[in-house]
C-alpha cells in the first residue's frame, strides 16, 4: 500500500526525521488560510499516489496567500496520470542549499534491506542509477542487527556530505530505518533530503510503501488507505480475495494461480488476441468467488469473449463449474465463453457445464485459439 507524501512524512517525523510543518487542504480557501498562517512563501503540492507530480505541474510555489489560493485552485482541478487531485499539502517554502537522496528498500537478491544515498537528490533516482550508478552509495542492513552508525558514516563519506552535517544525517538515517522497520515498509524514501541555507537537514518530500501482508499488525497505517486513489475494480476484487488488474484488450481471463494467469494472457497475445485483464481467483475458489470474478470481467463493455482456464489442485473443477453457472444466472453474459478445466474434479465440472452454452477445450493452446477466434466474431 502506497502512502501519500504527507502521510509518509508524518510517519518519518514520529521517528525523529525533521519535516516542514505542512498542512493538508482540500479547497483553495483552506490553502489561502494556511499560507496566511505560515506568513511567507509556500509550496502547494498535489497529493496523488504516482511519481512525476512535479513534471506534471502538480507542485507550485506561491509568494502570497492570494497566489497560493490561485495555484491550489488549478492543482485541485488536475488529473495526474489518470488520478484526480483531491488534496494538496501546503509546506512553508525552504531556502535550499543542496539536495540529497536517501532511501531504504528491500534488496530481494540479497534478502536484506538496503540503504541508498546520493548527492544528486531531487531528481528521478532511477535515472541517476541508470546514468551514473557510481553516484549512489549503497549499504546492506543486517535484518537481525539493524542499521549501524558506522554504515551511515561510510555512506556520508561516499556521497561527500560535509562533516558538519554528519550528526544530523545520522539522526535522519536512523529515523528512516526505524520508520521502515516499525511500519513493515518495502520502501521508505526521502527525495530530496535538503540542506537548508541555514545548514539544517529537512525531509522535503517523502514516499513510503507498506507491505500489504503486514497491514494486520499496523491498524493505524491500514486506516490511511486512500480508496479514492485506487482503481475501484481492484478494490472490489480485493474484497473477494481476488487478484485483478484491468488491461486494454477484449478477451476476459479467469484463471487460478498468478503464474498461470500471466501465461494465459501471454498465449492469448501469442495467437493474435489481446487480454482484457489479469485475474487470479486463487486457490480453493468457492462458487461466490467465481461469481464475483465473473461480474468483474463482464463489467467491462469491451470484453468480447471470456477464457476460463482452471488447473485444479486445491481448486476443484466442480466447484468452479457451479460458480460459473451461478454467475451466468446472475449476470446473463452475452459474450461467448471458452472453458478449459483440468485436474481435480475436472470431469465432474465439465459434466455440470454440459448444458450451458459454452465452448470447451482440452489444451491451453486450443482454448486460447478458440477464444481469439470468437472474440473476432468467428466460429470456434
Amino acid at each position: 500500500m502506497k502512502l501519500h507524501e504527507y502521510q509518509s512524512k508524518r510517519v518519518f517525523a514520529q521517528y525523529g526525521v525533521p519535516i516542514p510543518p505542512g498542512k493538508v487542504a482540500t479547497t483553495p480557501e483552506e490553502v489561502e488560510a494556511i499560507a496566511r498562517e505560515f506568513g511567507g512563501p509556500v509550496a502547494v503540492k498535489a497529493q496523488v499516489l504516482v511519481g512525476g507530480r512535479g513534471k506534471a505541474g502538480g507542485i507550485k510555489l506561491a509568494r502570497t496567500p492570494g497566489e497560493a489560493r490561485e495555484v491550489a485552485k488549478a492543482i485541485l482541478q488536475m488529473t495526474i496520470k489518470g488520478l484526480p487531485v483531491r488534496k494538496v499539502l501546503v509546506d512553508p517554502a525552504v531556502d535550499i542549499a543542496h539536495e540529497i537522496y536517501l532511501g531504504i528498500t528491500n534488496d530481494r537478491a540479497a534478502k536484506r534491506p538496503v540503504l541508498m544515498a546520493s548527492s544528486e537528490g531531487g531528481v528521478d533516482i532511477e535515472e541517476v542509477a541508470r546514468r551514473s550508478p557510481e553516484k549512489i552509495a549503497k549499504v546492506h542492513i543486517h535484518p537481525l542487527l539493524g542499521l549501524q552508525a558506522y554504515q551511515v558514516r561510510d555512506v556520508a563519506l561516499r556521497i561527500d556530505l560535509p562533516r558538519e552535517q554528519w550528526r544530523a544525517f545520522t539522526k535522519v538515517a536512523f529515523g528512516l530505518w526505524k520508520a521502515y522497520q516499525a511500519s513493515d515498509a518495502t520502501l521508505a524514501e526521502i527525495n530530496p533530503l535538503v540542506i537548508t541555507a541555514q545548514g539544517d537537514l529537512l525531509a522535503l518530500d517523502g514516499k513510503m510503501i507498506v507491505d500489504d501482508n503486514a497491514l494486520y499488525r499496523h491498524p493505524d497505517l491500514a486506516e490511511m488507505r486512500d480508496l479514492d486513489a485506487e482503481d475501484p475494480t481492484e478494490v472490489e476484487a480485493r474484497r473477494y480475495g481476488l487478484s485483478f488488474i484491468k488491461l486494454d484488450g477484449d478477451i476476459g481471463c479467469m484463471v487460478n494461480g498468478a503464474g498461470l494467469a500471466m501465461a494465459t494472457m501471454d498465449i492469448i497475445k501469442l495467437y493474435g488476441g489481446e487480454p482484457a485483464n489479469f485475474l487470479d481467483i486463487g486457490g480453493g475458489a468457492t462458487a461466490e468467488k467465481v461469481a464475483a470474478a465473473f461480474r468483474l470481467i463482464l463489467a467491462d463493455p469491451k470484453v468480447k469473449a471470456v477464457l476460463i482456464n482452471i488447473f485444479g489442485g486445491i481448486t476443484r473443477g466442480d466447484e468452479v463449474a457451479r460458480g460459473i453457472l451461478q454467475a451466468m444466472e446472475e449476470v446473463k453474459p452475452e459474450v461467448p465463453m471458452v472453458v478449459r478445466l483440468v485436474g481435480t474434479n475436472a470431469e465432474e465440472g465439465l459434466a455440470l457445464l454440459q448444458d450451458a452454452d459454452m465452448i470447451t477445450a482440452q489444451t491451453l493452446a486450443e482454448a486460447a485459439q478458440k477464444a481469439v477466434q470468437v472474440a473476432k466474431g468467428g466460429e470456434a
Partner: protein
Amino acid sequence: MSILVNKKSRVVVQGITGREGRFHTERMVAYGTQVVAGVTPGKGGEWVLDRIPVFDTVAAAVEATGADTSVIFVPARFAADAILEAADAGIRLVVAITEGIPVQDMMRVTTYLREKGTTLVGPNCPGLLTPGEAKVGIIPGNIAIPGHVGVVSRSGTLTYEVVYAMKLRGLGVSTTVGIGGDPVKGLDFIEVLRMFEEDPQTEAVVMIGEIGGSSEEQAAAFIRQHMSKPVVGFIAGQTAPPGKRMGHAGAIIEGGEGTAAEKIKALEAAQVPVARHPEEIADLLAEMLA
C-alpha cells in the same frame, strides 16, 4: 535418486489440524509420503487419520518421531514463528506453503536459517513432488510420472500445467520444486539448478520463471558457467504492464527491470531454449531428449 525429498523423508506437518493442513496431509499420506507427525500448539496428544500423532511443539515431534522435514500450513501471521521453530528443533528441510508472510519477517527468517544451515523452500509455494516416492506440499500427485527431468518453478498451477503436458508426452519428472512467488524466499533457482546438476537421476531441467526481480538473469549466468545438463525455460508475464503487481508478491516490473523480455534474452544467451507457451515446454524437451 531425486533431490530434497524421497520415500525416506520423515515429514512433520505444522498446522496439521487446520482445514488445509488436514486435507493435504491426507493427500500426502495417500501418495505414500511418510508423514510421521503433526504439530498444532495446544492440540498435543490428538491424532490425525487415526495414525499420525499431534504434538504441541516441533521439538517434541522431532524427539518422538525422528522427523527431518517439515511442511508448514499455518496462517501467515504465525508462519515466521513456525519456520524458526522448525529450524531450532533440528529440522533439515522446511517447506513453507503459507501465502502472505510479511517480507520483513522473511528477511529475518532467511538470515537466521542460513546461520543454522536449515534449507527453506518457499514460502507461498506448492512444495515438492518426487513422483513415485513422496510429495511434500500441495502439488496433485497424479499429474506427473517418475522420470529424469527436474522442474523448478516460481509458480504453482503453471508448474502443474507443464508437468501434466510432459506426462501426456510420456516425459517423467525426477523432482519438481516450487520455490514460490515471494520476493524474499528460501531456495532460489541457482541453488536448485546446482542440485539437479549433481543429481544422477536428472538428465534435463525445466526452469519456469516469471516477471519481477532478477533471479532468472542470475540463473542464466549460472547455467552458462556451471550446467552441463540441458535446460529448457519459460517466462510468464510477457504481456504484463510495468508497476502492476500480478498476484504474486514478487511479480512486478519495477523501474523497467524484471521484464519478461530481459529474462528471455538472458536465457537464450545461455543457450536455453525458451518456450512461447507452457505446453510447448514438453515439445522442446521431447526434441532435446530425442
